[in-house]
């Protein structure tokens, strides 16, 4: 449980101020992250799930130091990313890389594959070394060295995502952040890319933080999962245990929404409403309006994210009872 922490997020908060719509009203606010904390140890992988708008990409941008959090810290290999000088941060960047959701938008259409893949190397190597590194990393994602001089439009979506993965691998990073790495791909291609990600993780002992709204994807690649709701983690723990016996009504609802051919499964519970973004302060449990188990206490007292044993955490007053329910 206490290996070397590659990434630690401490109480991350990110509020966006929206452009003013009217002179006479205060500008709108979006509370994208409301105190998110977690740690990822070397060689393990954390999946982040949640509905659209719950702050997953915001979290990824904060972790990648592409955006400054309103409050909280991001520690990579023990170093606070937002306390580093510009040059120090630039040098540290080779230790954490990102794969984006859209393989059509994340590769510059004017650059060759060789140039795209070696961009994270900066100016550290000479031309020959860069080419060798690029060829090697392309081969490790199942592409050929002869693809080096092609342009992105010559590849399919799945191949492009392989290029994006190769690019993330080229610096041999300690952490790779993947934001919905397969959701833009055809279902038939998704499995191949997921297999590749799982393979690479074993081969290079990579550490992943993988965002997805698809529980199956997380279950396949990750050891641990964190479920986000309205910019908070509401449940976290090892995938196997969380998916077998969810301890938060929201996780349970997410699992119930996945059509799975499990015989004897009880009637699916529908998740009412779709408030997936928070725009102001909330009293009590943020899930109360949609929760099937809501009680008077929930509206007054906000449940804390608390340990349940078995390396699990949940933010619900009745977590033990929820966990004990038969699935």
């Amino acid at each position, binding site marked *: 449980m206490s290996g070397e922490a590659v990434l630690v997020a401490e109480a991350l908060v990110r509020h966006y101020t929206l452009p003013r719509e009217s002179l006479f009203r205060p500008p709108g606010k979006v509370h994208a992250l409301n105190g998110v904390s977690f740690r990822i140890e070397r060689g393990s992988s954390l999946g982040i799930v949640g509905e659209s708008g719950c702050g997953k990409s915001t979290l990824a*941008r904060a972790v*990648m130091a*592409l955006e400054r959090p309103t409050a909280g810290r991001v520690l990579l290999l023990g170093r606070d990313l937002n306390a580093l000088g510009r040059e120090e*941060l*630039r*040098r540290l*960047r*080779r230790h954490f*890389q*990102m794969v*984006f*959701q*859209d393989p*059509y*938008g*994340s*590769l*510059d*259409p*004017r*650059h060759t594959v060789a140039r795209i893949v070696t*961009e*994270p190397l*900066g100016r550290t190597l000479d031309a020959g070394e860069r080419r060798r590194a690029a060829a090697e990393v392309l081969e490790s994602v199942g592409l050929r060295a002869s693809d080096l001089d092609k*342009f*992105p*439009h010559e590849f399919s979506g799945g191949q492009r995502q392989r290029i*994006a993965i190769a*690019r993330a691998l080229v610096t041999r990073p300690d952490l790779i952040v993947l934001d919905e790495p397969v959701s833009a791909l055809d279902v038939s291609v998704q499995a191949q890319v997921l297999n590749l990600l799982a393979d690479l993780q074993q081969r290079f002992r990579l550490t992943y933080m993988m965002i997805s709204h698809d529980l199956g994807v997380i279950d396949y690649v990750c050891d641990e999962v964190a479920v986000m709701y309205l910019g908070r983690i509401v449940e976290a723990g090892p995938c196997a245990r969380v998916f077998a016996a969810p301890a938060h009504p929201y996780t349970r609802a997410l699992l119930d929404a996945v059509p799975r051919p499990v015989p004897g499964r009880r009637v699916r519970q529908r998740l009412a409403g779709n408030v997936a973004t928070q725009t102001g302060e909330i009293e009590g449990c943020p899930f109360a309006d949609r929760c099937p188990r809501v009680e008077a206490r929930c509206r007054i007292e906000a449940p804390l994210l608390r340990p349940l044993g078995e390396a699990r955490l949940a933010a619900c007053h009745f977590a033990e009872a929820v966990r004990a329910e038969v699935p």
Partner: protein
Amino acid sequence: MTAAGVTIGRALRHRSFAIGAALTLLLVLVAALSLAWTPHSPYELDVPNRLRPPQAGNWLGTDSFGRDVLSLLMVGAQASIIVGVVAVGIGMAFGVALGALASARRGWAEELVMRLSDFAFAFPAILSAIMLTAILGPGMVNAIIAIGIFNIPVFARVTRASANAIWAREFVLAARASGKGALHITLEHVLPNITSVIVVQGTIQFATAILAEAALSYLGLGTQPPQPSWGRMLAEAQTMMFTRPELAIFPGIAIALAVLGLNLLGDGMRDLLDPRLRRSR
């Protein structure tokens, strides 16, 4: 390369691009030829032979000083091209730099650049060029500077708008995540992805610059005698508008064809480049 072959084939089938390219090529070829050869010297005054109608030896006739009109038109193309190239070059160099800076820096830099260009846009470009040459004094160099300055905001705006769209793309975020700064992102990602837009705008501004040069020369503020210029030919033909209308018609046609050709070329390029951008998205 097959990809280039397909593109050239498609380009030639695009009517306005083909016509525009042909007219622009003609303009350039005529100007180039006039450097080496003209039927007569455009500087040779031949008063006894003044105002000859079109005929063998003087295909387009002679003007009120007996100069060969065809030769004047040919050499006049030089002035149009020089003014166009240099003025658009000035506008492009400064405009693209300012627009890219505004887009990369946002905040007050963007605000400053855009308010300055609003200011410049508040006056019609030709009027501003006239004002500026009136201040700087007449002459071709000053005409170029004046037209160039008023091209800056045009390029600044186009550059800023299209650069902003590129800055919002994910590959820019990816470049930032790999440690690239704003300058390198601008040079390596933003500018290469907006060159087509800038080239199209440059072509259209070229046409405007030719028109502006003609207007300034017509008013006596641009190209000075004896250097032939289409605008001055128009001015000189004015007094004989009713006796010898072709003296005004020929330079008029030359200006119209050059401007039309460049505009068609610009429009055609815009059409041809757009779907390509969409396809490679």
